[in-house]
């Protein structure tokens, strides 16, 4: 990110106008204090808790430094299975959403009439207001035996895969689709039309233009959308309980440990996994400029 902005020219009498550092400071303190206090401290406290343990006997948290939570995660293979399953699912959902979102976002951004565009934007945004839970439950009904999918697929001999990983992937892809469409749409809108004309003038067909001009320019936006789909899938525990059958994802295990054995230290240790994955992901995508496109 290059710094091309100039600061406001210093005004005359006020200190705020004169001292840019002061201005930055005053502007930043409230939000940073909020985020620092409300959020970072909470995260830090959770992280510290992961190094404590829960006394199985009394249920109280024993505030003695120990690595046993991390040791358990490392040793017991089921946690590895669950982690890879979750990451794999999140990646799959992201790819599917990107593939579904790109055509519609491109059409909306570059090919629709202004009125058509507005209509399409509204129709993409409206489903966001139907509750996440209701949508997940609707998919539960659709995937059930003799549900909508069975009903629609009957003439073709297709039957519902039932509750499980497939159903979870479809449902999650469905739920997060608007979060992928919007950034790609916004990013594509920023691509000037003249680029397409230039590409055409240079002799490239539409597909080539798409592949070599549009995609690279839209890539940061796609990555921006992926941050949401990836993160939302990584931590989800509700939709998977509704359509996933007996499937366990990281979110479920974390949730079960917070509620079940009331084992907050272990849940905290488990939650460092998705947090770490996201932090790595953010660090990697920073270079691609995606963060500007959120």
């Amino acid at each position: 990110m290059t710094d091309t902005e100039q600061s406001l020219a210093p005004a005359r009498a006020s200190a705020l106008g004169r001292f840019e550092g002061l201005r930055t400071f005053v502007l930043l303190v409230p939000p940073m204090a909020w985020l620092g206090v409300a959020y970072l401290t909470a995260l830090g406290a959770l992280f510290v808790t992961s190094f404590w343990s829960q006394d199985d006997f009394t249920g109280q948290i024993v505030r003695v430094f120990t690595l046993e939570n991390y040791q358990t995660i490392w040793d017991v293979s089921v946690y590895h299975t669950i982690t890879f399953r979750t990451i794999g699912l999140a990646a799959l959902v992201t790819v599917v959403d990107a593939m579904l979102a790109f055509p519609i976002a491109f059409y909306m951004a570059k090919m629709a009439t202004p009125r058509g565009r507005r209509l399409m934007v509204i129709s993409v945004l409206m489903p966001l207001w139907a509750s996440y839970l209701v949508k997940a439950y609707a998919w539960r009904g659709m995937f059930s035996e003799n549900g909508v999918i069975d009903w629609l697929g009957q003439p073709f001999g297709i039957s519902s895969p039932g509750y499980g990983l497939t159903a979870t992937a479809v449902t999650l892809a469905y739920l997060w689709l608007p979060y992928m469409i919007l950034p790609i749409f916004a990013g594509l809108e920023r691509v000037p039309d003249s680029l397409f004309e230039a590409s055409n003038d240079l002799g490239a067909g539409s597909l080539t233009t798409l592949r070599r001009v549009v995609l690279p320019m839209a890539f940061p936006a796609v990555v921006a959308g992926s941050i949401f789909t990836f993160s939302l899938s990584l931590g989800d525990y509700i939709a998977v309980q509704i359509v996933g059958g007996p499937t366990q994802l990281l979110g479920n295990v974390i949730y079960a440990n917070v509620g079940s054995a009331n084992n907050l230290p272990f849940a905290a240790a488990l939650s460092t996994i998705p947090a770490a994955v996201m932090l790595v992901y953010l660090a990697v995508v920073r270079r691609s400029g995606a963060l500007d496109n959120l």
Partner: protein
Amino acid sequence: MTKHTRVHRVLGAVLGAAALALVAGCGSSSSSGTTSAGGFTPPDVPMQQKMGAMEGQVNILAWPGYAEDGSTDPKIDWVTPFEQQTGCQANVKYFATSDEAVNLMKSGGYDVVSASGDASLRLIASGDVAPVNTALIKDYDQIEPFLKDRAWNSVNGQMYGVPHGWGANLLMYNTDVVKPAPTSWGAVFTDAAQHKGKVTAYDSPIYIADAALYLMKTQPDLGIKNPYALDQKQLDAAVSLLKDQRQNISEYWSDFNKTVTAFKSGSSVLGTTWKIIQQTAAGEGAPVKAVLPSEGATGWSDTWMISSKAENPNCAYAWMSYITEPKPQSEVAQYFGEAPANGQACSLTGAQFCKDYHTTDKAFADQIWYWTTPISHCLDGRTDVQCTDYGQWTQAWTEIKG
């Protein structure tokens, strides 16, 4: 003294000793209990001595079906009469497993909770519930005596709750698909592959006890005497059985509406259940029946407990008094499908209902293995081994689900 009475005396003593040690470790906000050799002293929480003015509302934490206010079905309503009689507005929150209940009680904000045996001792030991002054409960003397002063609802003769009702976990099956009718828990364990992908089980680590119960009857050489007292070897056997079952599972359920829709649509055809689920599903037109298998069953014996931090203690006592009166007891029992704690409810439910549910049959009641929190001091009295505790069961449960 019958064998069961002796077993329960031993159980009581062992639980008492265990809870003593449990409290010895506690030392949190409430004053630490004394650890004398003979007695068990839970955290010192004051008991209400007399009734005061009603506060105008009460926050109830209940199993679904225990506090119906007409919103499920306008004819099923015993909360509204309570509100009219006492002026206490009832705010009900439901939970799906005992673990949720314990967690919610810890977070505060609730006055009464209907706690099963695997939650009640945890709540007593952590000081989240207060002893109950049974003199303030209107029809306490009508409650069946074998439910009073039990290991899970009392400590040293002091009651910590008011018994609500009890019942067994049953085996529900789809009469169209599962033929012949199952008579053994083997239908969901060793024979589960016959209905691959359509078996359900309760989504809580406490379900391990169901597997242990089955092993207790079918593999006696494992030496399981109490499905909640499992040493590592016995736990491993139960876990292995459950991992096999996992291959045939459609869903693990904790939210019973999910089970109803699953049985209605045919996604599930066989599995552990509560009577209310079978009744609801049958009411929806699903061809389901429930049966108590030959090996016996795990079950629950629920107790209304009052929070130590209750903001509306008088309304809370009013609720506990009300819900144990014969008429509400008969209504809950019939709706939920359990045996009411108040034997007088039998005159309102009809004699057949009470016979079916063995309401006054102590011997039958003693055959059910009520949900109890497993602890490392073996609940069956063994001192030569260490039993697995609930934390280990929770870990095992995650491994089972895979």
